[in-house]
Structure formats: C-alpha cells, structure tokens
C-alpha cells in the first residue's frame, strides 16, 4: 500500500498575499471603474466654478425684473472697456440710502459704505490670466449684428442673470467654447486675438 502523500504545507504568508491581492483587486476595480465611467459621462457642469455665496445676498431678479434696471446702469464700463466692472458701494448707496434700509442685507451694505471699504464680491466668471476677453468688442459686434441694445447681448454668454437669485456660470467659457462661437460668426481665430 502506497503511503499517502504528505500533506502539503501551506505557507500562510502565501495565503495572506493571495487574499490581499484579491481584496485589492476588488477594491481598485470598485474605485476605478466608476471613475472611468464618470469621465466618459463627464458632465459639463463640472467644469464650472461652484456657485459662490456672496458676502451680500444680492438678488438680480428684484433689480432687473422688478425694478427694470438696465445691465449697463451698474456694469457701466461694459460697452466701452475690457472689464464689465462692478459698481462701487457708493453707487449702491445712491438708491439704498432711502430704499429698503430696514433689510439686514442692506444694513450690511450700509456698514461697508460707512466704513469706506469695498464689498469683497466673489468672482463668478473668470478666464485664465493669459486670455484677454474684451467685453467692448463683443458688445459692439452683437449689437450691430442683431441691431439690439447692449444689455440684450449679455445673455449670450452669461445666461439670464436677471432671473438668477445667485449668479452662476452657464457656459463653460473654455477655449473650445470661444473658438466655436468665433468660427460661427466669422470672427478671427488667430491666437494673438486673445492670447497676448
């Protein structure tokens, strides 16, 4: 009778290594696959900055829709300059010295005005420093093409800000976005138009 083969000694370290590799494979697969799928179904909103909470809850609707104030009344240099400009506190106080002075948000504003410091608004739309976007050129172009007032052009890129309680970005404003629009409108696509 043949002697049964001696029981193979199992190296416990080998077992542990196999078990660990199985666990790791499962964990990595679970972690990576959704990530890859997430990239595949990448949502365009992820390119945008998070809608910031501003130091003063400035409601565009009550100014634009209710009171019917033109965009250019506050963003004064938008049709003449590169920057749209945010109005100084003094310009807000022009009306709010009398209007709605009992509101806590306006009292915050009045404090900025009496302390003589600017409101530190958090910027929503921003392109990188090596990109030079000039509001003036775009407003000139669209007002002439469509024969409309300058304040009706803003929504092309900024969306309907008049109905936004908190201002948020609605277009990706990446280079592809700019170049697409430039091609459609026969605008120059030379690099040095924006990058200088």
């Amino acid at each position: 009778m043949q002697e049964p083969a001696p029981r193979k000694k199992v190296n416990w370290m080998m077992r542990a290594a196999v078990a660990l590799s199985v666990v790791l494979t499962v964990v990595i697969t679970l972690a990576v696959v959704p990530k890859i799928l997430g990239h595949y179904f990448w949502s365009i909103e992820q390119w945008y900055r998070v809608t910031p909470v501003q130091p003063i809850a400035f409601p565009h609707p009550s100014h634009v829709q209710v009171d019917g104030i033109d965009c250019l009344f506050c963003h004064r240099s938008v049709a003449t300059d590169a920057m749209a400009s945010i109005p100084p506190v003094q310009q807000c106080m022009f009306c709010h010295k009398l209007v709605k002075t009992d509101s806590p948000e306006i009292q915050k504003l009045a404090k900025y005005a009496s302390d003589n410091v600017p409101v530190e608004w958090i910027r929503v739309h921003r392109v990188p420093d090596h990109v030079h976007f000039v509001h003036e050129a775009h407003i000139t172009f669209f007002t002439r093409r469509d024969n409309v007032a300058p304040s009706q052009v803003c929504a092309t890129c900024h969306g309907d800000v008049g109905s936004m309680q908190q201002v948020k970005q609605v277009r990706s404003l990446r280079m592809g976005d700019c170049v697409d629009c430039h091609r459609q409108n026969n605008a120059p696509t030379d690099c040095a138009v924006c990058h200088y």
Partner: protein
Amino acid sequence: MITPRIPHKWGMVVDIDRCTGCQACVIACQAENNIPINTEDRYIQRRAIEWIRIERYWEGVEEAVKTGDPSLVKARFIPVLCQHCENAPCEPVCPVYATYHNNEGMNVQVYNRCIGTRYCANNCPYQVRFFNFFQPVWPESLYNQLNPHVTVRTRGIMEKCTFCIQRLRKVERKEVKEQKRISDAEFDSASGMYGPACVRACPTDTLVFGDLNDPNGRVAKMAKDERGYQMFDRLGTEPNVIYLKKVDLHASESAHE
C-alpha cells in the same frame, strides 16, 4: 452692420540719426509690459529681459589714440527690438507652434503654448528673445502697478516684443467702431494715443510706428527713404523694422569698415 477688419501690416521705422541713447524706450517698455526687474547679476548671467535695448558702439577710438584727440571718439546708439521678420528664423524651429506669423505682419509669441525649449532664442540673429529663467517677482507694493492688459509671464517660457499688441487691439476695436482706418498720427509720440510704449516715450521721434499697408501713412513713406536699411538684411529675414542710417558729415574712417 458688421465691418470687415482692416488688413494691417504693422511696422516701425527707427531713425538712428535722431537717437540720443536716453533709454526712455527701455523704461517705458519695462513699465508697459510687466517685465521683471533686471538686477546686476541678471545682466552678468545674460538673463536680463529687455524687449527693447539700446546698443552702444564707439567709433573713432583708434584715431583718437593715434592723434591724441579724444573729441574724435563718437558714440553710436542703435535701439534693437524684435524685428518682426517676415521670414523669421525663430518660427520654424518651435516644436509646438508657440511662435508664428500672424496676418498683421507680426511675429507672435503664444505664452500658453510655449514649453520653453529656447530653440527660438538660439535661432534669432538679433538676440531679442528672452527666456524667463526665474519666476518674476516684484516688491509687494509694485504688484498693483502691473498692466492688467498684459500677461505676467511665469518661469520657463519665452517672451519678446509684441509691438504692444494690447494697444493695437484697442486700435482695431476703435476702427471697427468708427469704421475707418486709423491714421498714423494716432501712433505718433507727440499727439497719438495708441502707439507702442517705446514710440510714445521717445523724446526725439527716433521710433515711428504705423501701418505699412497704408500708402499715405508716415511709416510707409519713411520706409522708402534712401537711408533705409534692414538690420542683417543679407540673412534674408525681411524685418518689419526699418532703420534709417545716421547722417554724419565728419564720419571717421573706422565707421566704413
């Protein structure tokens, strides 16, 4: 209606006869284009950045030594900036197309494309391309004086004279608005508002800027002057910067070597 953009070919005329070597253009350029502060050790390392520089030459030194008359020594000043060559040696060597020729006759450097190989600077016969070997830093109080219309270049990319493209873009916007070509008087150092910083700073009208496509323009006329020459024209780079030779009634012999 929409106006088509007016085709420009920007060019500059440098009248060496007028240059006094005062360096106002160098300082103006430094201020306008956010050029980092050059310290002495940067110059010693040959890493200083000057988009426009004044080259100084001494003439008649040998005669002065021979005759013992120091009044024979003459200083010659030549402002050197990017020549915006039509056939630029810097362009074909760039592996990433960060420098190219645009349709306005300008040699353009695209900062965000540049990867800093420095091939272009090696191939430039005029030594007017500068590499940012360091992250530019200014004293804290000077950060607010940076020009917002010009990119601050970071470490590792090439830069050079742009003909103050930010001001030219302003000109083009004005042209589109008013639907007419802007005359060269607008670039004049005395009366104009839009010329490059060096041109506007020049107290002797040495530097004249304008559109070479405008046949009635001042620059197009001056470029045809019989004193005109292009720097290193035998290299065939066809610069858009045209120099006017110095008129010297008592030229020393060594000047003709």
